[in-house]
């Protein structure tokens, strides 16, 4: 975008009947207010932008503040960070109008529900100690590796690493089952996301009705107590339904990420 030209930053889509006001300042140096562009029963949440470029740090925060606030109050389909369109007319003609029916249907389906995400991380040391106690073969192999000089134990070390990796996978699967077993009954839907780090035990997104959020949080708390020091739980939300507004379908003039 060229210097000083006006453009429209797009945050997400809500139902046009939704009158929630967003207080958070918009993306860009001028921190303009968030407004809506309605069309065919849906509305885009946008703000005006007239700077030459975005700044990742500040604007990622601003983008998130708007969506976080919106998600706390209403159902919003989030648009990917950094999406800017030419004008209000472009937002209507190229984005809202061609996709109105489909977006309205998704919004109706997700109405009154929020995403709550749970990540679990192993305490690596505790986990490894547990594996040594549980699995005699790992303990045996460890003794053998320790008795040999490093150069002579190459294959043994690989084998030991394989055993450990397999056991960690087994723990991941059973911990994921435990978490799903406890929390899925309280949710409308659950979706396993790829783990973000090597020590991740699980990463699951839940779609939860707003009126069940407290019950869900209590269950998470109990679960965290049960998992103890072994798995550290991080619990984030309410988020826009990022993981559930996403079914791989292609839209006219747009695709679902």
């Amino acid at each position, binding site marked *: *975008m060229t210097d000083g030209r006006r*453009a429209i930053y*797009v945050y*997400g*889509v809500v139902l046009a009947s939704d009158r929630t006001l967003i207080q958070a300042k918009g993306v860009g140096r001028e921190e303009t207010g968030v407004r809506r562009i309605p069309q065919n029963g849906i509305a885009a949440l946008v703000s005006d932008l007239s700077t030459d470029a*975005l*700044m*990742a*740090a500040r604007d*990622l*925060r601003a983008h998130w503040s708007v969506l*976080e*606030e919106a998600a*706390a*109050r209403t159902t919003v*389909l989030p648009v*990917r*960070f*950094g*999406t*800017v369109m*030419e004008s209000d007319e472009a937002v209507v003609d*190229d*984005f809202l109008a061609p996709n109105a029916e489909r977006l309205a249907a998704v919004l109706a389906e997700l109405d*009154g529900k929020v995403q*709550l*995400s749970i990540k679990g*991380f192993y305490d*690596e*040391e505790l986990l*490894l100690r547990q594996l*040594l106690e549980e699995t005699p073969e790992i303990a045996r192999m*460890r003794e053998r590796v320790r008795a040999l000089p490093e150069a002579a134990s190459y294959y043994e070390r690989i084998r030991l*690493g394989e055993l450990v990796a397999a056991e960690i996978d087994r723990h991941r699967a059973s911990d994921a089952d435990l978490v799903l077993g406890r929390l899925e009954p309280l949710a409308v839907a659950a979706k396993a996301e790829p783990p*973000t*780090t090597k020590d991740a035990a699980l990463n699951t997104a839940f779609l939860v009705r*707003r*009126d069940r*959020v407290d019950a869900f*949080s209590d269950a998470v*708390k109990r679960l*965290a*107590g049960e998992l*103890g*020091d072994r798995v*550290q739980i*991080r*619990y*984030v*939300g*309410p*988020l826009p339904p*990022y*993981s559930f507004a*996403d079914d791989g379908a292609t839209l006219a*003039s*747009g*695709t*679902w*990420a």
Partner: protein
Amino acid sequence: MTVASATSPRAGGGYLQRPGGGSLAEVVDIILDKGLVIDAYVRVSLIGIEILTIDARIVIASVDTYLRFAEAVNRLDLQAADDSQGLPELMESVTSGGAKSKTQGAIEGVKEKLGIGEDDDEDREKEQASRSRRRSSSRSRSRKDDDE
């Protein structure tokens, strides 16, 4: 920005009742990877935004791992040396060859990039206050909605 209200403190085992909303570091992978994508032909491209986005993603993704390894390594220092031998290779790579200071550098880098850091405590307090107001209003709102 509220940070870590979602996180149960490592040592204490205390756990917060409510989900922590919105720590940027907690959700950055979601924000950057997901969301409706509007066709490139009808978007205005912004100078540098793609590069900055990729940058933020890479640095942020590494931070959690680095922090955890650093913590694990710190714990090991307190114990007999032979206890550490069973730990995986990755641990070794963190402890050996000055990787620790590299980690430090990367974390500082992220803080700069995302503006997390010095001013954050203040931010956090302000946010916490406004968040609890927001939360309670959104809760009463959602109850109202449900009654309708």
